[in-house]
């Protein structure tokens, strides 16, 4: 009976197993000397512990195998080579001294063919801006001038500044989630997504 009372609870058994596996021997949950002694003396608790350790090892093995099944030694070597190539490539780029400093950052759209349309939209926006400015100067009291003065500066910036694809999509999401977007949400729900249309046309 005395022995039964000192059996380790499930939680303590977990603590003991984790402190062994996770290297937390100095933590407050580390097994005490008497608990370790009990584990050594009690076959039932030792069996429970080894069953738990087996489960942890099996689950850990499967979780590792999920990635390892694809990332074989060959693929890891290729990945390593790619990483080192990229580092070398960036080092070569790093030697170019740009001037003035403000324009030294690489254009965000470089190397992404799928985002050329964003550059085209930005260029078109810029053109529209120039035309609007021209019209505003020509008819200073006209509605175009008022529209320009009242326009949201953020919106103008959105049109004029070249945005990376990530920034552009981020702004679209912010606009959709904003209060002004709520009125348009039913329309948005009715509008098919590009991937839905693509799936239908395939």
């Amino acid at each position, binding site marked *: 009976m005395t022995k039964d009372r000192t059996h380790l609870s499930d939680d303590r058994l977990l603590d003991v197993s984790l402190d062994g596996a*996770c290297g937390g021997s100095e933590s407050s949950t580390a097994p005490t000397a008497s608990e370790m002694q009990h584990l050594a003396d009690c076959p039932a608790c030792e069996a429970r512990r080894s069953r738990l350790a087996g489960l942890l090892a*099996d689950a850990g093995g499967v979780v590792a*195998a*999920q990635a390892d099944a694809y*990332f074989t030694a060959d693929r890891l070597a290729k*990945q390593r080579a790619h990483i080192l190539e990229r580092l070398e490539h960036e080092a070569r780029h790093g030697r170019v001294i740009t001037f003035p400093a403000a324009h030294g950052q690489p254009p965000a759209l470089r190397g992404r063919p799928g985002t050329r349309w964003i550059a085209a939209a930005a260029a078109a926006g810029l053109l529209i801006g120039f035309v609007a400015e021209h019209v505003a100067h020509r008819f200073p009291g006209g509605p175009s001038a008022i529209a320009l003065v009242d326009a949201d500066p953020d919106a103008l910036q959105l049109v004029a500044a070249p945005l990376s694809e990530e920034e552009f*999509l981020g702004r679209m999401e912010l606009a959709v989630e904003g209060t002004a977007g709520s009125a348009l949400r039913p329309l948005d729900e009715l509008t098919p997504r590009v991937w839905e249309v693509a799936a239908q046309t395939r």
Partner: protein
Amino acid sequence: MIAPATAPPAPVSPNSALAAEIKALVLAGRRDSARERFAELVAAHQRRATRIAYQYLRDVHDVDEAVQDAFVKVFAHITSYREELPFDVWFTRILVNGCLDLRKSRSRRLRWVLPTPVDAQPPEPVAPQPSPEERLLASECGRKIAGAVEQLPERQRIVFTMCQVAEHTTSEVSQALGLREATVRVHLFRAIRKLRALLEHER
């Protein structure tokens, strides 16, 4: 995004010492030597990194991209590495933030941009024989365990992976994920209890 966590002082591991050496080489302008030494660091962390990234992204191409980006980012910012922080923790934090960014960008892309046609993807070479990992995953026991792991909430699955697979301590996981250590332990306990409940009657 994970907020930076304050790190307690830790004994310098071989990886941290190597990272400090690479930092010194970069600061001395010896970038070629630094890159050579960095290759060793990559080799030491690659497998662990792919396992962690896989739990976030579940797509091998994204995992590859995230791991590559994390290493490139680490080298680009090696001069800001603080030796008192274990390199493993610093690297894992960069990797995890990268995975979260990639996942966010993937969901945006799915919503707004036409996906790349499947034909454009390079075909996967077929392995001549299933690897031991593939055999394990294909076995009945492996499938059951994988199914049970899939049922874990993401946070629990990731904490479990970091502790049991990547062999981080709960303290390191708490620093890498920006969580309290007690919270990490709670997630880990819950993950193991759930796995046990799902699997123990099978054993």
